[in-house]
């Protein structure tokens, strides 16, 4: 669109463009077709204007309801900080499984390293007299736990 036409375009939509604008449109098919296309949207947009007599009036207490809704939202947001939700519990469950798995694999490798996995072998190993130390006590407890049915 030519600058001269563009400059007066909004006055055209307001209904007060100068004659020179329409003279230009009459002589310039390119500007004319563009303005015609825009005219249709201008008319269509005006349909969004409310008819003054038809607008529903705010009911009594509208302001109170707005404020109540805002406080309601505030409350939900505040509780949201403390209520963990499903995602939180899923993460906790996943983390617990990870801890259990790593603990289990740690115990298995430790027992393999000791040379036997069944309770009898372990007991046989521990039947041999040996010096008492803290490590032995710990092993003793583990053996007791492993053989407990």
């Amino acid at each position, binding site marked *: 669109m030519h600058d001269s036409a563009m400059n007066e375009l909004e006055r055209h939509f307001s209904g007060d463009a100068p004659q020179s604008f329409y003279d230009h449109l009459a002589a310039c098919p390119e500007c004319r077709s563009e303005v015609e296309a825009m005219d249709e949207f201008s008319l269509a947009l005006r349909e969004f204007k409310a008819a003054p007599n*038809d607008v529903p009036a705010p009911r009594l207490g509208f302001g109170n309801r707005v404020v109540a809704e805002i406080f309601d939202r505030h409350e939900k947001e505040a509780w949201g900080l403390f209520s963990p939700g499903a995602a939180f519990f899923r993460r906790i469950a996943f983390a617990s499984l990870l801890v259990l798995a790593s603990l289990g694999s740690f115990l298995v490798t430790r027992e393999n390293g000791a040379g036997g996995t069944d309770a009898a072998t372990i007991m046989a190993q521990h039947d041999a007299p040996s010096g008492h130390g803290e490590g032995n006590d710990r092993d003793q407890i583990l053996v007791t736990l492993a053989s407990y049915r």
Partner: protein
Amino acid sequence: MDYENTPEGTLVRRAQSGDETAFREIVEKYQSKVFSIIHGIVRQRNDVEDIAQQVFAKVYFSIRNFDFRSSLITWIYKITVNECFDYLRKKKVRKLVYESDMSEDEVRRVENTEPGVDRQTRADSTLARRDYIVKLMDRVSDEEKQLLMLKEVEGYSVEELSGMLRMNENTIKVKLFRARQKLVKAAQRLDKAPVPPAAA
């Protein structure tokens, strides 16, 4: 006088600092205007209040971001228009009830004068046109939407918009021109069809 130092500017400052009374005053002052904007766009009497509540809740939660570059009502207008188009996008205009699109007088007049088929055709045409415009308005930015609505629906001149939005007149003209061009191009892309004719 600087807008920030006007009585309304002071009211906004109070609301920004969490004064609930100031916020209530803002609601009281602008609720009718907001209702009118919503009804013009949405034409669903039953939903006007719900949307207005959403609008004022948004005003409350974002009033701290209000920077006094425009007047409060211009800022509320933008929020309202966006809320309405969001609503229409979600609800799909075609599903709106036909009668709600007309005033009570219009419905009565139509019922008394037009045969049923004509009435249905007219309703379909109006809804199709509205649906079409809503779709097209989705293709322009929030600022462009606001400018188009203020110019075409509220009837402000470029000079008035320049004062309201604190923008140069030429900037306003260029922005409006681009917005209109976008609408035309979007329509061409959408289906290469012109705007459905307005219901007579």
